């Protein structure tokens, strides 16, 4: 069994307190993770400046090259992870076993993380709008218009309290390293695999180990990261997001409430978009914030719901190694039963119909885990409670709503795919402050363009644009050497 130890600015720490990670289906132990408490994290945070200092020894160009090398290592090499050497196949198997994700989805997330790392140069070029990265390094510089610009790093390290079951979101903290910002990560107790393997790949690629802190543990260690790191990100529920709302030190990532809006000009041709809608709902077992949880149209909504239900309603739980497996397990069975109880409440409201009812039982309970099979519900009005719900399985509400009311009623929307050629609707969607990522045209909500910011631009989060002026001294300064 693999043992994952905390990493304190590159140095493994032998903890006395362990959490066992078990296989979601068999209960078999697959790893043990050494924990640390908030005291150790707090102590290390006082040395965080050394992480940045270590990275500043390398140019951003050097670090981008190391990212490319790390991408290859992460995706294809045997790497030292914890006390073991881990192959890609082992990584995939371990991640699937602890998160409940089918193995092919784990491979897909592995590729996604590697892609972002390999293409970091272009991604940063886009995120910085073409800024010479040495200006971020030095703090100021000439941008080419005869004006000195200055960007001040707001923190020596980026803290992150990582999620338990979403391997795809780790792309969000990867840009920190080429930006010469160290990392203090609290790995999720069921998904320690990606941060451990990624940090191992970085170090193997030549990034200084002192840049990395990995702090597995309970709420205490996560809380210490959030409290002590000048900038940190957290992944959690809507409640978590609300808790950090307005806190400039924290970037909170929660449910996406991503949606597809169908304009009146194309809704009669809705069948042309069925594949796109199904992919948006079903991909990654509906677990991502970029999965579609709402499809809004003024008419044909019952037909749309029925057509999607016909495609995803029969999807059943398959073994995680089956390449056709579409459903992730809930590794904590109570999460599934609790979620299903909430869905039952949603369905009790008048005007809400379970369109997938004919496809059999939705809750599948096993000895150590549970599954929820896909559900499509129809809501006859945006007034129904279900339209503002998002669940951790393939679940979508097809909502009947006049086009004129859509943008006013949709609420927070991480990804909004707008199907229309109506310029007025396109313009209004572009102006809507409720939509973060706007897709105009048939782009599935789960298909991200990595050259675009995702849930907040990390450059804006880690650096502050400010004034910086220089003038020559009237006499030469004495040498200080």
């Amino acid at each position: 069994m693999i043992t994952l130890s905390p990493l304190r600015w590159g140095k493994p720490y032998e903890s006395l307190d362990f959490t066992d990670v078990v296989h979601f289906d068999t209960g078999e132990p697959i790893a043990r993770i050494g924990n640390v408490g908030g005291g150790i994290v707090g102590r290390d945070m006082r040395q965080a400046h050394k992480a940045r200092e270590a990275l500043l020894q390398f140019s951003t160009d050097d670090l981008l090259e190391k990212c490319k090398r790390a991408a290859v290592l992460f995706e294809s090499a045997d790497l030292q992870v914890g006390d073991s050497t881990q192959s890609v196949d082992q990584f995939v198997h371990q991640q699937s076993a602890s998160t409940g994700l089918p193995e092919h989805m784990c491979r897909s997330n592995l590729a996604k993380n590697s892609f972002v790392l390999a293409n970091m140069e272009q991604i940063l070029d886009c995120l910085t709008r073409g800024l010479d990265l040495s200006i971020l390094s030095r703090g100021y510089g000439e941008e080419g218009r005869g004006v000195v610009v200055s960007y001040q790093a707001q923190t020596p390290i980026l803290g992150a309290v990582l999620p338990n079951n979403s391997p795809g979101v780790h792309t969000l903290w990867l840009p920190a390293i080429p930006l010469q910002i160290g990392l203090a990560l609290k790995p999720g107790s069921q998904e320690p695999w990606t941060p451990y393997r990624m940090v191992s790949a970085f170090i193997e690629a030549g990034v200084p180990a002192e840049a990395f802190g990995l702090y597995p543990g309970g709420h205490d260690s996560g809380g210490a990261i959030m409290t002590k790191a000048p900038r940190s990100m957290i992944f959690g529920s809507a409640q978590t997001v609300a808790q950090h709302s307005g806190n400039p030190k924290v970037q909170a990532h929660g449910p996406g409430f991503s949606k597809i809006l169908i304009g009146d000009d194309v809704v009669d041709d809705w069948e042309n978009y069925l594949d796109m809608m199904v992919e948006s709902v079903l991909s990654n077992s509906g677990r991502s914030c970029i999965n579609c949880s709402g499809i809004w149209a003024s008419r044909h909504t019952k037909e749309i719901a029925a057509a999607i239900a016909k495609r995803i309603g029969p999807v059943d739980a398959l073994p995680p190694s089956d390449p056709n497996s579409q459903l992730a397990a809930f590794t904590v069975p109570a999460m599934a039963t609790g979620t299903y109880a909430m869905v039952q409440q949603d369905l009790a409201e008048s005007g809400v119909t379970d369109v997938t009812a004919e496809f059999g039982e939705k809750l599948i309970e096993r000895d150590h885990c549970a599954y929820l099979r896909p559900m499509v519900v129809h809501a006859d009005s945006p007034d129904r409670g279900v339209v503002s719900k998002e669940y951790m399985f393939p679940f979508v509400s097809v909502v009947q709503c006049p086009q004129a009311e859509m943008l006013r009623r949709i609420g927070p929307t991480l990804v909004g795919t707008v199907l229309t050629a109506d310029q007025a609707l396109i313009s209004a969607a572009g102006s809507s402050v409720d939509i973060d990522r706007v897709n105009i045209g048939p782009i599935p909500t789960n298909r991200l363009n990595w050259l675009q910011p995702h849930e907040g631009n990390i450059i804006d989060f880690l650096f502050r644009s400010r004034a910086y002026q220089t003038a020559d001294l009237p006499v030469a300064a004495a040498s200080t050497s």
Partner: protein
Amino acid sequence: MNTADTSISDEVAKLAAEAKDRLNEHTLKTVHWHFSEDTGSPFWLGKKAELNFDPLTDVKSFEDLKKFPLFEDEWLRGGPLARWVPKGHAGKPTFVFETGGTTGIPKSRVVIEDHWKDYELFSDTLPDKYFPRGANWLMLGPSGPRRLRLAVEHLAQHRGGTCFCIDLDPRWVVKLIKKGWMEHLEEYKKHCVDQAVTVLTAGHDVQCMFATPKLLESLGEALEERGTSLQEVGIKGIFSGGTEFTPQWTRFCVEEMLGGPAEEGGVYMTPTYGNTLMGLACSKPITAADGYKISYYAPQPRAVTEVVSFDDYNQPVGIGETGRVKLYTLTDEFFVPGFMERDEGEREAPFEMYPWDGVSGVRPFHELASATTVGVY
């Protein structure tokens, strides 16, 4: 007999047998006190009628306490308090102490002098080298209706010092956590710690202290941010307590916060495990060589802890095995013939200093853990 008794030396076995004799004798005396018409409490005299045995004639040893039904902590919620006062103590001034972080009707326990006696006994276990006689103390933890403030204050006075007290209200902390007001929680903790820093840096000759683990950690950090440390402000000995007191946390304290092991010049720290019902259990001295393992031993015969099977609360598990912690309180003020704690742990063998069973690895009972707000203080 079980596997326990085969793994200890003859000398410890002899001490353990003597301790068991003392416990049996003490049990008999305690039961007679609480069930005699002249000295018993209204509560136990009332319960006597419900029992299918006569405690005065049928309890002949500690083992016979298992004839009683389990003590229900719900009995301690609400009044009248007077039903708990033994007639033998009628008319004496009484204290009432309540359980810590609950926000419903708390469990209340009437106390006359038990908290003083418990801490005087505990005092005997503290090495003078690290808890100098005459030195002043700092108590950083819950006071209010909890017994801790008065008990630690008495400990300081008993050892010839004066105690500075800083309060933390665990009920407010529980509310802050439940509301998700983590920023307020941090500020409240800072408010408590700031007061402690003020006391420690004001020339009061404070050399000993009690602090809860989380507050001790915050205090150490606050002092370091000011360029000093617990050691530098003069602290020589600390006792701390709570189920959050883990080997990992102890290791962090010793290696990183307290300047190393006491014998190498660091601050001495002893873990304790106590509550309003039992008094204060002491720890076997902790060492790096033993993996900072923390084993608690109840102040027998005034209190006894057993580690019992999850399936049969009258059956102790073998040494080293895991079970639920069962508590007995046997003082002339309060009688608890078997109460199931909200904790579990491993049964530890007797040794020279405490020749009776101990418990290690104390943590919330797994079946209750998810419903418990832990780490309050």
